[in-house]
């Protein structure tokens, strides 16, 4: 019980640390478009640029696409590869400032949003997932420009205090809630009907009984001594100071 409480307190502390809010940046952010995989036409790029510019008052905005020539982290079952690349690219382009990076990873067939700072406060991990879920079908249909533009449109909606569709989140959460509820009720049903066995003490208490022991002694049959290993060993390690890393977050979707 005490351990559970300690774990809960630690989790609550983690939540509080992670919930810290960032101030709105005083300077306008910068805009980056690195279409390495050449996914955007000129027309699409200009449409995307105008959508990205609306975000600059809150921080920097980046669009990055990568293809097999530039990116060696491909792994069919590594869902975090795109996320790691997005974070790395964000640190490289924007650094520890408010901003958002939209990645189209052609190697892993995944779109990913990585965000930090003031923009990150609005575009949470859950929202990033919802946005990528809302637009991944454009990427599946090879309409990469529309995909990115629609994503930035939704990001701007959020930054202006609007709401976006989060069907994936609500449907998936509903499934999880129903599954957990089915199990909770099954366990409750069994717990409610657990029958207590009658103990010998209960039987003894109910009726007259006398048990007298004339105890003669306790003979020692054998004694075994085992020398335990010393439990004191030198502690090692600790936490190393981080250099240039910061805690942004993001969410993505395969296409």
């Amino acid at each position, binding site marked *: 019980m005490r351990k559970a409480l300690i774990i809960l307190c630690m*989790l609550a502390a*983690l939540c509080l640390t992670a919930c810290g809010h960032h101030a709105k940046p005083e300077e306008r952010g910068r805009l980056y478009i690195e279409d390495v995989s050449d996914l955007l036409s000129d027309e699409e790029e200009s449409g995307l640029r105008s959508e990205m510019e609306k975000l600059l008052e809150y921080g920097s905005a980046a669009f990055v696409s990568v293809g097999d020539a530039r990116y060696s982290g491909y792994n*069919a*079952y*590594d*869902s*975090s590869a795109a*996320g790691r690349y997005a974070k790395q690219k964000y640190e490289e382009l924007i650094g520890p400032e408010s901003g958002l990076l939209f990645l189209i990873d052609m190697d892993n067939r995944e779109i990913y949003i990585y965000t930090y700072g003031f923009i990150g406060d609005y575009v*949470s*991990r*859950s929202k990033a997932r*919802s946005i990528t879920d809302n637009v991944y079908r454009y990427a599946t249909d090879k309409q990469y420009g529309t995909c990115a533009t629609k994503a930035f449109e939704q990001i701007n909606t959020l930054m202006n205090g609007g709401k976006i569709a*989060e069907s994936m*989140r*609500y449907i*998936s*959460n*509903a*499934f*999880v*809630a*129903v*599954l*957990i*509820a*089915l*199990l909770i*009720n*099954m366990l409750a*049903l069994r717990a*409610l009907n657990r029958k207590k*066995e*009658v103990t*010998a003490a*209960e*039987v*003894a208490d*109910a*009726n*007259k*009984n006398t*048990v007298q*022991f*004339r*105890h*003669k*002694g*306790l*003979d*020692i049959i*054998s*004694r075994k*001594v*085992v020398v*335990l290993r*010393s439990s004191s060993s030198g502690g090692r390690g600790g936490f190393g100071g981080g250099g240039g890393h910061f*805690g942004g*977050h993001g969410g993505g*979707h*395969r296409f």
Partner: protein
Amino acid sequence: MVGCPGCGSKLVFDIESQQMKCSYCGKLYVVSQVSKHSKSADEHPDMTRDEYSEEPIMSEGPVMEATVFTCSQCGAEIVADPDEAVTWCSYCGSPATLKSRLSMIRKPDKVIPFKITKKECALRYREVARKQIYAPNDLIRKGKAESFRGIYMPFWSYNVSRSGEYRFPGKTVEVIGNEQITTSYMANGWIESRQHDLSHDASVTFDDAVSEKIVPFMGKDAVEFDDCYLNGFYANAADQGEEEYRQNILSTESDIIITKAQWNLPKFGMDEQAAKQQLADTGNYKISMESSLQMYPVWFLSYRHGDRVSYATINGQTGKTYADFPASPYKYLLFSLLTAIPLYLLINLVMSATPAVVMFSALIAAFVASSIYQSEVTEIFVKQFHVSFGKKEKIAAKLKKAFTGFGTVAMIFVYVVLYLLFDTNEYLPDLGANFDYVYMVIAAILLVILVIRFFKMKSRFMALSNVRLNMTNGLFVLVAVISLAMFIIRPADDYLYYAGGFAAAAIVALSVVNLIHGYNILASQKPKQFKRSGGDDLA
């Protein structure tokens, strides 16, 4: 019939006053005043046992005349006053025709009169039923005073004396400094034990599993038997000899001695099992047992649902209640949906599940349900095939281990940590971990475990030949196969995940409803075909 000395109307035993009460004028009489002497064959040498019945229920001890009603549905026999209107069978709950005949039954030596009134009994039942949120409504409603029937159940009561030299082994382990010292002991001495009123039900009609739950009865309230006490109640005739239960009683007596030894002897880490074995070796002790047949008061309620029957029994002396409550699948699903609403709101606050999470949640749910299923099937197996007591205990321990075992707990822990805290949580740091890979590996491991379970349980569920239970076993494996396939394919399209997740969730829901079916088998019984062959507990 015992008539009122004043008006001649029927006298019945009144629980509140503990006297005989006239059902017409309400006058009270002390039992001894109106005592009607039993017409035993011994007292009437001109009558032989054969004149009453071709097959006397008990062949030894004093006998008495009684009207025995036999249920044409289940064959259960109830002893009642010939004037009593017996309109339904208390054992199978059916409004069957009950045929009466005059018979000879073993005359009880003592009786504990009813202390708990019908009204109190209904209150105690309602108190228990109130917590049974999944029980069918008509079962809860049935718990009215008039639904209960007072039945005197025959119990063999034993007084056991034991004297002899005990030798109880034990072992202690202590750590001093960096040394672990294990010491084996043998406690020895002399024991004198005298235990009264250890009882066991003497009727095959009364399920031992039920009677064991409402004991103990307190022998101090037992009085000399007089059939006046039976007036207004049913009774059951003893049909098992006292020698049947001597071993059970000695086992209970040994348990009491061991409990007392733990309180009275110095602490030496007594090995209870070895001590019990030593006590069971009757060569070491002088043991004497006296037995008497006693009638104990039990309030009885039977609830028939389909072709099965559930019982509620209440100790008519102490009020101890035992009731089997089958669950209604509709109520279960309704409560699950009601629970899901606040859970959904809570989950929306802290997490954002993805379709892959739905899939994984269904897999974990299937795994936990499979653990419950494993425990349930084994319990049904034990119940139906009457696996010997020692084995039953071992299986029960295994079940506990399987259900609360490391595997299930570890899986739930992994689920909570992976999904609720890190993969889907809004506020905790993004670990950047490769969750899909982790899910795939876990799905593969769980598939292997579920397949092993499938084959381990196969012989049991085949023996039970219950289609619904058999099907459930395969459903869990199917969920694991779907999950693993999804994690390997990793479809980009949400709809495929949703389809897989929905199929898996539907399978889990179906298997949980089947678990309710299994649970209801445990909470009820097929009415026994007393003294007939072919009774099948599961059919």
